[in-house]
């Protein structure tokens, strides 16, 4: 087939990129080679717009065993054990087909973990959808939400990995661009880590797992008209997941690794057979030769182009020691899986593909994996934002603070997500010490006596107002969540969800956010060991809020941490970090401004990282001394919402604070670096706080059944039954979904 400019454009390659391909090959590419380049050089696989900026991230530290560049980052946790962890997005597929899109998102990240020899022991999800009510798209948004949640449940539950936490936020900008970011973590022994570096000329290249079909072709870029005509069939670009097969693949891979016959292994994710082979070859500086006729196929008549670009799920490529193939085959046969030698490691660093006896592609591995174009896209514009900086001239005074609080705890962002996480098996593998619904999840590692605390956080609204500060706040909040369970942050992964990088004002958001993450991760000593960039999250020219999502893990000795909830009456309630500065300029980014005022203005809360870090060190000391009966960090919704979340049906609190500039700001402002504690030993807590030069005022005392917040003299702003708060918090999401069902849905699917 002749390569025409139209064909090049349909493969989303620019003419200068095509020129580079020709010069790397020293000739015109074949049609198959053009397809291979188009996926490997896609934004998704090559990070061509973000790579030069990602270099700014700190990637080393005393716990880091493996930083970015492998399938997952690796951290030492002591006793010769390590954890592998990473976050990855499946945003676009989850919009097109929520159930399978989310399910295969889980499947993909799980393979990234066990391909390194680590058994997955925890999953978390960071989700963003359009509003489930009060939106013209509410019905569709709910369908996407319920589809994504069922997809995650379907895959994770069957595979047998607990889904232990996450977050779920709703904004109109995610209506046509939902975000599904999945984090996974696994454990293995340090000397049993596997890498994806092919070596040993003459070693066999073995294909294992599911058969290859036409599903997901060009998932990493996009189908073209030419391509569709050629294949005579229109196939959806979303892959279909089979969690049972993945479970078999997990067990078989871990067992095969134990034979010692495996040299290198990589999963087939985006760009399937192509990326796994050229990346393994490139890392090991060797060539790979594949014979496509030997690839197990689900359909007949597949072309080389289709096989190389298929994104069929649950497949792995591995290099075994020559002469020991039978040991590998034996294990895969036991688990009932295909395992076939389809190629060989060669000299010379080239990826050579044969089909029906002919060479259909011959490309230097490095050209595909490492020499993709890198762009320093213009980013000198001001980051995109439409919201005003100045607060409105008149911020209306609250008519009823009780009603406001009830409305906030029942709002989709702040309400209990039990309806979601109860559909996930979060206790399988009997390691979950703290599951969903807390500040951070805590999972023990049975082999070491240590536990891993983990937290996911991102705030698109903050980042929209100031990408750099918003990103730093996300890092700070993750670390605060970990500190609140007593853990020390050790490493991070990030998922950068942004709009179109070819727009300078969007690129500016990305650069600002990366630099913010770099600064904060360095400061909090949580180096980035891997992650994912998802760009072009845009519909009809309007991008999503810039949404960097941070996943940070921490280490702690295995023990049950202090809970979020108050434990009993008459405990002293203290606010480590103090009331904080809550002013009009920064109130516009709060949940109160969003839910009650329906406005957005100003800047995100102000973060002083040195102060924040002292709060973390201090709360860890208070917790280690066993002084806290409960501990809960303040975040979205501020003090009043944190207090509500710490109440149980039986136990509330009577709190007295100064109203400050405006009582709404004090109750609902989201100033960071604050942790709510209840204790029987306020003097000792106070003494520790003093040593860290921190405020830790006593703000009240726990009591039976009510939450009361006043000025301690004459005025009571909040006076509610704790049971009513609980009910608003717990019943809200199921009620919203139920109401929609009863209406039968008012809008049609896109």
């Amino acid at each position, binding site marked *: 087939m002749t390569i025409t400019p139209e064909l090049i454009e349909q493969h989303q390659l620019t003419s200068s990129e095509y020129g580079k391909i020709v010069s790397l090959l020293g000739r015109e590419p074949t049609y198959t080679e053009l397809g291979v380049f188009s996926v490997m050089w896609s934004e998704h696989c090559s990070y061509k717009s973000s790579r030069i900026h990602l270099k700014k991230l700190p990637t080393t530290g005393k716990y880091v065993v493996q930083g970015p560049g492998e399938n997952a980052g690796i951290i030492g946790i002591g006793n010769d054990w390590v954890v592998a962890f990473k976050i990855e997005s499946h945003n676009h597929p989850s919009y097109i087909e929520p159930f399978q899109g989310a399910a295969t998102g889980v499947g993909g990240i799980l393979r990234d973990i066990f391909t390194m020899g680590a058994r997955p022991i925890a999953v978390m999800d960071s989700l963003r959808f359009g509003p489930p009510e009060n939106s013209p798209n509410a019905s569709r948004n709910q369908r996407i939400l319920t589809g994504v949640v*069922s997809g995650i*449940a379907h895959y994770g*539950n*069957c*595979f*047998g990995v607990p889904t232990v936490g996450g977050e779920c936020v709703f904004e109109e900008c995610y209506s046509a661009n939902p975000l599904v970011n999945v984090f996974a973590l696994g454990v293995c022994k340090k000397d049993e880590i596997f890498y994806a570096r092919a070596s040993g000329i003459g070693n066999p290249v073995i294909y294992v797992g599911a058969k290859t079909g036409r599903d997901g072709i060009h998932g990493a870029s996009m189908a073209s008209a030419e391509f569709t005509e050629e294949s005579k069939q229109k196939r959806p670009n979303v892959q279909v997941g*089979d*969690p*049972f*097969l993945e*479970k*078999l693949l997990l*067990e078989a891979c871990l067992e095969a690794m134990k034979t010692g016959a495996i040299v290198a292994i990589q999963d087939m994710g985006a760009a399937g057979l192509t990326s796994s082979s050229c990346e393994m070859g490139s890392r090991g500086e060797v060539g790979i030769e594949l014979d496509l006729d030997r690839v197990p196929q689900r359909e007949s008549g597949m072309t080389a182009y289709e096989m190389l670009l298929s994104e069929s799920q649950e497949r792995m490529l591995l290099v075994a020691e020559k002469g020991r193939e039978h040991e590998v085959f034996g294990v895969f046969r036991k*688990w*009932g899986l295909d395992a076939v030698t389809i190629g060989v490691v060669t000299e010379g660093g080239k990826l050579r593909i044969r089909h029906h006896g002919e060479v259909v592609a011959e490309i230097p591995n490095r050209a595909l994996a490492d020499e993709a174009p890198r762009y320093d896209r213009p980013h000198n514009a001001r980051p995109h934002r439409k919201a005003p900086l100045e607060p409105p001239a008149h911020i209306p005074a609250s008519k009823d603070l009780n009603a406001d609080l009830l409305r906030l705890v029942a709002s989709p962002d702040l309400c209990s997500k039990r309806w979601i*996480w*109860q*559909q*996930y*098996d*979060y*206790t*399988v*593998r*009997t390691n*979950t*010490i703290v599951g969903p619904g807390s500040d951070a999840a805590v999972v*023990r590692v*049975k082999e070491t006596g240590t536990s891993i605390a983990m937290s996911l956080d991102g705030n698109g609204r903050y980042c929209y107002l100031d990408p750099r500060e918003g990103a730093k706040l996300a890092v700070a909040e993750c670390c605060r969540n970990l500190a609140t369970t007593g853990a020390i942050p050790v490493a991070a992964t990030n998922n950068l969800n942004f709009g179109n990088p070819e727009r300078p004002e969007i690129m500016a958001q990305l650069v600002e956010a990366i630099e913010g993450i770099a600064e904060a991760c360095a400061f909090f000593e949580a180096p980035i060991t891997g992650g994912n960039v998802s760009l072009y999250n845009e519909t009809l020219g309007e991008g999503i809020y810039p949404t960097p999502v941070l996943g940070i893990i921490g280490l702690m000795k*295995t*023990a*049950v941490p202090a809970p979020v909830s108050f434990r009993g009456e008459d405990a002293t309630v203290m606010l480590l970090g103090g009331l904080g500065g809550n002013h009009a300029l920064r109130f516009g980014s709060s949940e109160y401004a969003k839910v009650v005022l329906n406005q957005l203005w100003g800047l995100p809360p102000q973060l002083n990282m040195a102060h924040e870090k002292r709060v973390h060190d201090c709360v860890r000391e208070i917790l280690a001394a066993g002084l806290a009966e409960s501990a809960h960090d303040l975040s979205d919704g501020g003090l009043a919402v944190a207090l509500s979340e710490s109440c149980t049906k039986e136990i509330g609190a009577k709190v007295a604070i100064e109203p400050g500039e405006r009582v709404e700001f004090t109750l609902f402002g989201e100033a960071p670096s604050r942790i709510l504690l209840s204790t029987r030993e306020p003097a000792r807590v106070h003494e520790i706080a003093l040593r860290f030069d921190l405020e830790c005022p006593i703000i009240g005392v726990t009591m039976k059944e009510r939450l009361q917040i006043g000025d301690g003299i004459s005025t009571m702003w909040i006076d509610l039954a704790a049971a009513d708060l609980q009910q608003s918090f717990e019943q809200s999401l199921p009620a919203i979904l139920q109401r929609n069902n009863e209406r039968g849905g008012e809008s049609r699917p896109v």
Partner: protein
Amino acid sequence: MKVGVVVFPGSNCDHDAWYAINRNLPAGQHSGLHPGAEFIWHDSTDLSKVDAVILPGGFSYGDYLRCGAIARFSPVIGAVKKFANAGGLVLGICNGFQILVEAGLLPGALLRNEDLKFVCRQVTLRVETTNSPFTSKLVKGGLLHMPVAHGDGRYFADEKTLDTLEAEDRIAFRYLDNPNGALRNIAGILSRERNVMGMMPHPERACDPLMGSVEGLGIFQSMLLSVPSAVPALAK
């Protein structure tokens, strides 16, 4: 006591059951009885070395068809049937319960949860009988807290079968907070000979204080004291 934990390709609670028996149980007061668990692969038919069998939770063969519908034809289930018919102790947990029902070792069926969603949460069970090798160490009417995690856990049987189960004192546990719409709040049942028990909740996930409950241990302790090989150990 040697417990065989059956491993189907899609079992995912096999390690948890193994850990509960080998690590959590000895830490209790019965360390002199040497409990031990070993895995039994699904195509094995040799149960000669074990005193009791656990069919653990998971998704046996993927369970894209009815849960347990394929597992009932596996070689190991043939052996388990013989083992049970000879009086051996068989405990099916979650997917294991579904398999026992499909295999005809227990009556009734486990249907899709009433709200059609997978549910994972802590439930409260009431012990309905102590007249069984799985519940002898428990207190009748006592409450146990442990997790459920299933999509198809709604116990169903015709009225006559349910009446029979009640009349023969074969309902082992009932939910106080029914999570799935199970008829008569049934969480676990016994075979007529009382040597086979199936239950949807996960006692193996409630054997460690770190997991928030140790109230599942009593079931394994009861089994430990009930198997014949425990007797000589007790005599020591």
